[in-house]
Structure formats: structure tokens, C-alpha cells
């Protein structure tokens, strides 16, 4: 069960990363317009009062243009980042995977990556030991004990996806996770994922720009715009009728 009540997240519009730049900018601002040294548009709302409930077993797709707040929302639900205000309750083990090959460190071997990343996700060595052979077999990587710097981008994506698809969890969060994988592996992932989601207790949140992927996995669709949920409903209804023009703009289809 995931409960979000009035969740907001503010970011600084422009990061003043250096003290000297900060001092120069502040001095210039005060010289040019002394009355408006503190600008009100310094922050922007990545998420703006999101309230939603996702029940166990629901498979929710999230669609939105760039900078709609999709990744921020996923990071907050995963507990990686903290909202600025609101209330968030998550029941069950969450496993997130984000775009572009996840956390691949070139100086590790594939096997070391499996252990390090799974440990960072909160799994014990015993739990990892029980799945490591399946992960390696599924990823189709022969040289698992070679350094990751020798792997191609596709191999890295295969490794990170294989890992999360074999770790036990209650809630799966996929944020553009299929990015970078080839067609054959994508089919394999889809089959494996269908197998996982056959269990009615498994919940999934899937962020994707791909209409087919959303139609395959999701029974509910949320559309995010400027940090707000603008549509929440049945996938087919939303795609077919209500937001046909907007979704085609987002998905490019």
C-alpha cells in the first residue's frame, strides 16, 4: 500500500554552487535592484500537492512530459529523496530501478556489482547468494568476473535489470528502466516481469514514454504535468478517449 497526501517537493531554480559566484550575484542584484535582492522565483515546485493511493496488486503507469516530476516522485516513494512537505506511507519492500544502466561502477566485476547494489537495496548476503546464479544466467553475461569497464552499455543494462528482476520485493518501481536494452532482451524482461506480476500481491509503478509497455503491464494510468496529477484512471480509457491528443504528444506516437 502506498499513500501520498499533499506531497510537494521544491528545488532551487539555479544552484549557486560557489561562494564567490553567490557573493558576486548577490552584490550585483542588490546594486541593480536593491528592493528585490531575494527573488521569489528562486525555487520551483517539482511536485505540487500530490495525493494518491496505490493499493497492493495495482500496476500503475505514469506518463508525463520531461520535467513533469516523474523521477522525483519515484525517488520520494522509494525513500531516496525527501519531500518538502506532505505525508507518505509505504507498506512493503520497494525495489527501484532507474534509467540508463543503474549504478554501474567500472572498477568492479559484474559479480561484485550484484552484491554491492543488492546490499545497498537492503538485501542480506544469504538472500543475494540464493539468486546470484539466476541473475547471471538471465543477464547472458559470460564474463561476469571481468571488470565492468569491459562491458558494453547493453551488457550493463542487462546486468542491472536482471538483478532487480530476481530480488524479492512487494513494490517494483521502474523509471524508464528498459532504456538501452536490445529487442531480444526486452522480450525476455517482459516475460519475466509478467511472471512476477502474476502474483496478485505485487505492486508496480512504471514510468515510461512507451505506450505499448504501459498497455502491456498497467491497469491504471496517472498523467503528471508540472508536478501535479492531472489525470488518474483506466489505461485504455485514457489512451483511447480522454487524452488521446495529449498522450500522443507525450509518447510521440
Amino acid at each position, binding site marked *: 500500500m502506498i499513500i501520498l497526501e499533499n506531497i510537494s517537493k521544491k528545488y532551487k531554480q539555479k544552484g549557486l554552487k560557489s561562494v564567490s559566484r553567490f557573493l558576486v550575484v548577490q552584490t550585483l542584484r542588490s546594486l541593480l535592484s536593491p528592493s528585490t535582492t531575494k527573488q521569489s522565483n528562486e525555487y520551483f515546485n517539482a511536485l505540487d500537492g500530490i495525493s494518491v493511493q496505490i493499493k497492493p496488486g495495482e500496476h500503475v503507469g505514469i506518463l508525463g512530459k520531461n520535467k513533469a516530476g516523474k523521477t522525483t516522485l519515484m525517488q520520494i516513494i522509494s525513500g531516496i529523496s525527501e519531500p518538502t512537505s506532505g505525508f507518505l506511507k509505504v507498506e512493503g519492500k520497494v525495489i527501484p530501478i532507474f534509467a540508463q544502466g543503474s*549504478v554501474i561502477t567500472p572498477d568492479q566485476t559484474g559479480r561484485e556489482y550484484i*552484491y554491492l547494489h543488492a546490499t*545497498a537495496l537492503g538485501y542480506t548476503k544469504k538472500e543475494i547468494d540464493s539468486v546470484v546464479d539466476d541473475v547471471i544466467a538471465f543477464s547472458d553475461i559470460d564474463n561476469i568476473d571481468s571488470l565492468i569497464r569491459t562491458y558494453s552499455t547493453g551488457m550493463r543494462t542487462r546486468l542491472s535489470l536482471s538483478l532487480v528482476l530476481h530480488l524479492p520485493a512487494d513494490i517494483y518501481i521502474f523509471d524508464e528502466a528498459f532504456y538501452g536494452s536490445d529487442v531480444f532482451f526486452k522480450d525476455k524482461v517482459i516475460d519475466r516481469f509478467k511472471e512476477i506480476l502474476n502474483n496478485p500481491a505485487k505492486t508496480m509503478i512504471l514510468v515510461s514514454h512507451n505506450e505499448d509497455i504501459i498497455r502491456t503491464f498497467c491497469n491504471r494510468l496517472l498523467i503528471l504535468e508540472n508536478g501535479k496529477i492531472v489525470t488518474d484512471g483506466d489505461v485504455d480509457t485514457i489512451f483511447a478517449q480522454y487524452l488521446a491528443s495529449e498522450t500522443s504528444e507525450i509518447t510521440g506516437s
Partner: protein
Amino acid sequence: MIIYPNKQSLTDYFKDILRYRQLLVQMSKKWVKSKYEDSYIGLGWMVLSPVITTIMYTFFFSIMFDMHANKVHYFLYIYSGMLPWIFFRDVFMETLDIFPKESLLIKRTNFPRLIVPLSVVFNKMLQFGFGVAILFIVALASGKDLSAYFFLFPILMLQIVMVALGFGLLFIVPCIIYRDIKHMIRFVLPLGLYTLPIFYRIKAVPEEWLSYYTLNPMVSFVQSFRSVLFKEEIPWYLLAKGMVVSFLVFAIGIAIFRTYEKRLPDFI
């Protein structure tokens, strides 16, 4: 489980860190591997680095001050001060660097962030351990006896970890937000070496300054460490003062770090 707002007690916070101890070990291994794997001497650099630095300082100061003292004893004197200084410097500076280096892991997984700087401490403790082993061998070979107060060693280690990690935790967030601070620290930190009784004796410090001078917890550490190693009288008052200051630095550091911990992915 309520994720936000979540006021986790300090006990639960440290229990959580304990639960992730395996990650701590793996991250430490990863750092050792990435740092030394491609070199011929490998882990040997952990031992050689402080030894070479100390030999250079020993020769430099012996010549500069025209010292006729036993060179081995002078080496031991400097080395016993350099080891803690190098530990402090490396933990402090690498703590400031490590979050930007681990930004992908921070932005994609949810684990207690304190594990990351703790992995630095682990590595540097290993290096410190090698250094102390060399120190013992040279000290025993040169005829020095070890103190019966050897049991104080873990307490001293706790003190230096609290100081180095505490300062690192204090500066992590400011250094990430305002990058200039780190550059400034890089210039200022080397001067810290000369504020410690490493090349000179504490007796050289004027009496009226001594109470302020010993507020530096590293002064307490260096003096106590040498006393334990070289069978000298333990400076109990100095040790206690150092422990109190170290604890305060660590407590403030951890309090600030906990406040910003969950916002680190926003900064890096």
C-alpha cells in the same frame, strides 16, 4: 511504514547502520580496489606512503635544525605524529569528496548515507593499522619499550575517528552546495600539520597559550598516542579534554549530517 514525516530516534538510526554493515565492508573493499588495483606495489602504498613522507621530514628537519639526536628516535617521534595526522587529513578530505563520487548510488538506492563516509574511515583505519605495525617493529628494534597502558589504544582510536569523521560530517553539505569551501580547505588544511606537536615538543608552546592550544583534539591524541607507544606518563587531563572536544565535534557533525542526509540527492 511512514516514510515522511519520519522522526527516527538516534538509537534506531545506528541500528539501521548496523543492519547495513555488509554494505560498509563492500564499499570499503571497492575503494581499496579502485585505488590500488592498477599499481604494481598495490596495498604496499598504504604502508610506504606515510613512511616515505616521514623519512623526508626527518631528513629535512634534521638538516635544518642541525640535530645530533638519534635519527631513528627522531624518525619514530615524527612518525608517531605523522600517522594520526595523515589519518585525520585523509578521512576529512576524502569524506568531503566521496558523495559526489558516489552520486549514482545515492540517487538510485535508499540506504543510511553515513555508510559512505564510514567506508572511508574503514579504509584509513586499515592504513593506520599497517602504519602502527611498522611503528612497533621499528620502536622495538631500536630498544624502546611499550607502555602497560596499551589498552588505551581502542579509546584513542575512537577519539581520532570521532574528530576526523565529525569534521568531515560538519563540512560535507556546505562543500557540496558551495564548492569553493572545499578549495579553501585544501589550502588551509596543510597548515594544521604545524599546529600539532609533530616536529616539536609540546613544551615549546608558551605556557599561557597551552590551555587554548590543547583544545585541538588532535594535540591530545598525538600526545596520548606517543605516551602509550613510548612508555611515557599518560597525560590523563589532556586525554579527557580531547575526548570531550572530539565527542562534541562528532555530535555536532552527526546532527548536521542527519538534518541534510535525505536531501543529499538534491545537492549532488
